[in-house]
């Protein structure tokens, strides 16, 4: 009973928080209270007030608008990176599980090669070579996601291959690839959704990290990581400049993790 309620709570809170941030990011596509790129030196470093709800920064930009724009960047980069990881990783995992033998070995060892580099180091390497920017951040984080999805889907697929319904499908004359597509992939769905939420939250952190060291989205594109970087020297003078993007990131990542946890317990329960 308590287990059940706990799942409902983490699922509800996680889904609520995540939905809030995604709505804000979508809203930022069309509207923000002020132009996040508009400089207004006269109104610089205002604490939160009725006109600027979350205050202004050292260049007089509206912090709420920056935050919304940052959410857009964050969601966009993390989502695309998850998409890249799943689009390449899931087929690799399915192929490795279906083919077995040397193909399996080759795919998984290639994954290990990517895993051997720390994720952020790899991302820094890529953005340093190809130049900083949001697109390169997407690619860098996406590449790190590939082996994660490949491993998860291979493990799930190997288990599904032991079930008799895959034997029944082979007796019905279906080949390994068709069975992977028709029987294995749909049964991995729950597993992959959970992994996607986790990689999403890691993507949010990675995007902020890259932007913080100046390798993510470049000015004037707003980003939470760069907001934190710029606020660093002003913490005594204007603490809200660091607190606000920090809290936003914290609650978004927490929300995504709660969502993933709730979904995981839910999918374990399902038949």
């Amino acid at each position, binding site marked *: 009973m308590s287990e059940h309620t706990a799942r409902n709570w983490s699922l509800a809170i996680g889904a609520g928080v995540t939905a809030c941030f995604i709505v804000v990011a979508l809203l930022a596509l069309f509207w923000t209270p002020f132009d996040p790129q508009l400089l207004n030196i006269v109104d610089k470093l205002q604490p939160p007030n009725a006109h600027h709800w979350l205050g202004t920064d050292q260049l007089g930009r509206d912090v709420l608008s920056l935050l919304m724009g940052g959410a857009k960047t964050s969601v966009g980069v993390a989502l695309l990176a998850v998409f890249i990881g799943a689009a390449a990783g899931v087929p690799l995992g399915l192929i490795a599980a279906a083919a077995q033998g040397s193909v399996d070995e080759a795919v998984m060892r290639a994954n290990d090669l990517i895993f051997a580099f720390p994720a952020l180091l790899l991302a820094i390497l890529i953005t340093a070579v190809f130049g900083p920017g949001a697109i390169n951040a997407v690619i860098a984080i996406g590449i790190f996601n590939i082996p994660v999805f490949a491993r998860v889907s291979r493990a799930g697929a190997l288990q599904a291959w032991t079930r008799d319904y895959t034997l029944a*499908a*082979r*007796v*019905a004359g279906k080949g390994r690839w068709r069975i992977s597509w028709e029987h294995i992939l*749909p*049964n991995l769905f729950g597993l992959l959704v959970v992994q996607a939420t986790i990689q999403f939250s890691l993507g949010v952190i990675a995007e902020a990290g890259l932007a913080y060291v100046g390798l993510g989205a470049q000015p004037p594109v707003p980003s939470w990581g760069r907001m934190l970087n710029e606020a660093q020297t002003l913490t005594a003078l204007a603490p809200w400049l660091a607190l606000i993007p920090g809290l936003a990131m914290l609650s978004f990542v927490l929300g995504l993790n709660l969502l993933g946890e709730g979904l995981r317990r839910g999918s374990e329960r399902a038949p």
Partner: protein
Amino acid sequence: MSEVLRIEGLSVTIGATPIIKNVSLSVAAGEILGLVGASGSGKTMTARAIMRLLPPHAGATGSVRLRGESLSSMSDVQMQAVRGRDVGMIFQEPMSALNPLMRIGDQVAETVSLHRAVSRQAARAAAREALDQVGLSGEAGALDRLPFELSGGQRQRVAIAMAVVMAPCLLIADEPTTALDVISQAQVLALLRDLARLRGMGLLLVTHDLAVIAQLTDRIAVMQQGEIVEQGSAEQILHHGRQPYTQSLLAAARLQAKRMAKSRVDAAEVLQVDGVVLEYPRRRRSLFSAASPLRAVDGVSLSIRAGETVGLVGESGSGKSSLLKVMLALQKSSHGQVSLLGNSFSAGAPAMKRLRRGIQAVFQDPVGSFDPRWPVERLVAEPFFLLDRPPRAAERSRRVAEVLNQVGMNASDAQRYPHEFSGGQRQRIAIARALITQPAVIAFDEAVSALDVLVREQILRLLAQLAGRLNVAYLFVTHDLHVIRAIADRIYVMQRGRIIEEGATESVFNSPQHAYTRALIEATPALPHTRG
């Protein structure tokens, strides 16, 4: 004899649903009581109610007394001490009852140190003694083996050693041999009997199969829908059972012959297996010598004629499942060939799609046989993939409805999902899926082993009916001679990858030539024949 267990007026409800109604039972020291009923009759719940191991939301009333002491009024802490020390319990699935990462000696010793403040050495010594008693001694390092190194029967022996190491006065065994092959089954049952007799321990044996316990029990209680409908001495129940439910359990356990009794010697051969060898590569032991491969199937030849039922019998590990995979062209053989309806049948042969229509299969696990995300219609229609022009929409629904009717299901079941059906119904759906391409042969891989006796009876009757109507040949692959005897026209006996005996069913049963066949037949539990 002193009484060990007395249950009076035990009732269990889950939510508002009554599961057990007013059950009264008793077991004396050294006595074996069989508790028999179909699945869902409440026998497992009764066993769990004694141990106070009911699921959450379940409520129990009535009294359970162990050696005069009331278990129902004990605190949870007191009850924990009783479990394992005074009452031992063993379950159906010996693999999941053991911790896969713990050495068996340690698992048994753990039970000892939980209940008695003893040194590690003393606990190990007690474990060694218990493992000796269940016949797991002799080899060096017997205590240091891990569960995966043991066979099913050996694992069940470890579970028994854990249950009896504290010398409990009562042992509860819930379907202890259902997952085992016949020979292990006979050994485990004999072990349980000896333990009960020698130690004066009460034994409550829960099962669905009267044949299993007929020669073992002193008394039998028959359970139907949560109530004890009849109880008495084994003799009385087996020969003079009055209740119709007891009669139907007896009839199902006895398994009347269901063969069509048609002579088929002149029929054409539909499936021929010729000198098939299947080898699995083994990991090499050293750098310099290649490992010799494992021969799972060693030069097997057999044939199946149109419309006949053939049994392939052997204990687990005899290679029968590997052979079946070769026959279904799921696995390439190392040597030899399989031909189906006169054409070479193996993966990669020409026109495989057309050939595969001729042979379909029904598997053991009624849960795992179906993709849980597909509705019945799509599942049953899956083999249509083999047709050049698979029927679509209305025609497909019509064909699916037709086979569902043939197996005794409704056309409306086509839109439902597999989890909505019972084990027996799922096996019917699996048969429907096998029938839909109108094959010449259907292979059954332990297809009735997971079913209780009443459902097994229904499925076998259905198969006999279908065979008569459709002229389809069956290949029954099983370890259960009882089932084979009831349904097969001819049998092949397999041991260590070879066919060691073959012939018409009755002649093999009446005069087995090979020692292994004799051992199998002797191990098969049977009911005494009815008198008068």
